[in-house]
């Protein structure tokens, strides 16, 4: 089977409008969580969010073209353009025909959906903007990227709530490894700062009152985020043939379902997903140096993930673990992709980003969650975990690239 590597990265996140700004905030543990900016803010209880502020569509499209993309697709296309530029690949017709696009999405084009709900239900009007369907259709981010870049291989959106971005990258990895494609733009996108989404999340009672503190004893919930991250994933020989810079190698993907509760994680099942990824990569538990955790900052999720990690690595050294959600919040369908990007850069730069805001590491988690700040250590193998509502788990295994 072919080896598969990451050769391009692109991002639009609350921590920055590109990869460099995003990574520097993540590695410094500099939180992008801020007071929520929204015209209906007075009607919300949640006071904070991790929003992509200062994103100006006019920097990327003319007025008409920008209006044809929901904000989720705007993020997705800008991140994908950046990733493609970063990887330096020339999309000849032959390359394009074998170039896939798989994008993870959890809630989709909800800005368009929300606006239309207001027109129809609040304003009692029947005429909604004419291109609403192509804006909110779930596959819009993938279709817009494919059209914008000219990717003509297999293209679709994958939906597995908060694991979507990880599933997207994992499916692309498997397809390329098996020879079904040579290159893929894979990642996730979300733009969920709408009244319907925010009030619905409030109703679940999982949002923090002030900030996201993963693995901290005083954690009190997650903070909604938005944004997009895209990876260019490529067959190693394809990347080498063109002298591409390689960030990291993807070595395994494991994914399963709890088949139990929709919103309560099952530690045994999460542990099984990690084992599936390690088996796929040919790793034993002792090989794993670092885990980029799902770590949302809710009492339940962090405890379950901690327990799953302790169980998986019971017979050897525990890997170092950190969550970047204290910096970028929880961007649902984009989260796994932003975390895959962070994991690739962790291996590339050989430095572990801290768990920002973890000012009181919870002894019951029983892991070194790198709370004090970035840590420079030698790293070979890493996992990145995603644990989604609906009982869906997805784990990628990555390796520091060595020829």
């Amino acid at each position, binding site marked *: 089977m072919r080896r598969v590597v990451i050769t391009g990265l692109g991002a639009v996140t609350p921590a920055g409008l590109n990869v460099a700004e995003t990574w520097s905030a993540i590695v410094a543990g500099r939180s992008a969580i801020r007071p929520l900016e929204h015209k209906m803010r007075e009607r919300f209880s949640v006071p904070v969010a991790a929003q992509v502020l200062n994103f100006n569509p006019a920097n990327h499209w*003319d*007025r008409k073209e920008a209006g044809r993309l929901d904000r989720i697709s705007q993020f997705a296309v800008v991140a994908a353009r950046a990733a493609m530029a970063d990887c330096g690949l020339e999309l000849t017709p032959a390359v394009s025909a074998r170039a896939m696009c798989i994008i993870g999405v959890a809630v989709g084009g909800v800005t368009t959906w929300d606006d239309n709900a207001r027109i129809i239900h609040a304003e009692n009007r029947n005429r909604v903007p*004419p*291109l609403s369907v192509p804006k909110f259709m779930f596959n819009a981010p993938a279709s817009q990227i494919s059209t914008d870049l000219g990717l003509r291989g297999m293209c679709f959106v994958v939906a597995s709530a908060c694991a979507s971005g990880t599933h997207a990258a994992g499916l692309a990895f498997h397809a390329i490894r098996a020879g079904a494609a040579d290159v893929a733009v894979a990642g996730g996108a979300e733009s969920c700062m709408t009244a319907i989404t925010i009030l619905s999340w409030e109703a679940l009672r999982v949002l923090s009152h002030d900030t996201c503190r993963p693995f901290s004893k005083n954690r009190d919930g997650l903070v909604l985020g938005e944004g997009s991250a895209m990876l260019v994933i490529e067959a190693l020989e394809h990347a080498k043939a063109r002298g591409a810079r390689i960030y990291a190698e993807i070595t395994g993907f494991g994914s399963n379902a709890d088949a139990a509760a929709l919103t309560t994680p099952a530690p045994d099942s999460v542990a099984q997903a990690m084992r599936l990824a390690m088996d796929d990569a040919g790793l034993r538990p002792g090989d794993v140096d670092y885990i980029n955790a799902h770590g949302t900052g809710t009492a339940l999720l962090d405890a379950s993930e901690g327990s799953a990690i302790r169980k998986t690595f019971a017979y050897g050294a525990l890997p170092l673990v950190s969550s970047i959600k204290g910096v970028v919040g929880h961007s649902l369908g984009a989260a796994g992709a932003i975390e895959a990007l962070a994991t690739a850069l962790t291996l590339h730069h050989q430095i572990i980003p801290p768990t920002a805001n973890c000012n009181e590491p919870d002894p019951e988690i029983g892991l070194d969650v790198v709370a004090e700040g970035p840590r420079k250590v030698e790293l070979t193998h890493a996992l990145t975990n995603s644990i989604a509502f609906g009982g869906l788990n997805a784990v990628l295994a990555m390796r520091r690239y060595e020829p």
Partner: protein
Amino acid sequence: MSILEDVIVIIGNQLDRNPAEFNAETDLADEGFTSLDTVEVTFELEQKFRINFKYNANEAYGGERRTVGDIVKMVQHFITQRDGG
């Protein structure tokens, strides 16, 4: 303003171009009009002239829709229909 003038303004806005560049003979495809432009202009024309193209039932209108002049004829057709003509 005549229907032609109104249609030209709407099409000029849609293409982000000066309406003075357009006349009844302008071929829309030649000017870069896409299927998405058609959908958006349909919406604008309906608003402007308070007509209903009975979409999907462009079939109900058998005329051409190639030039600006064709669009004017189509608008006129649906205005007449609206007014019970």
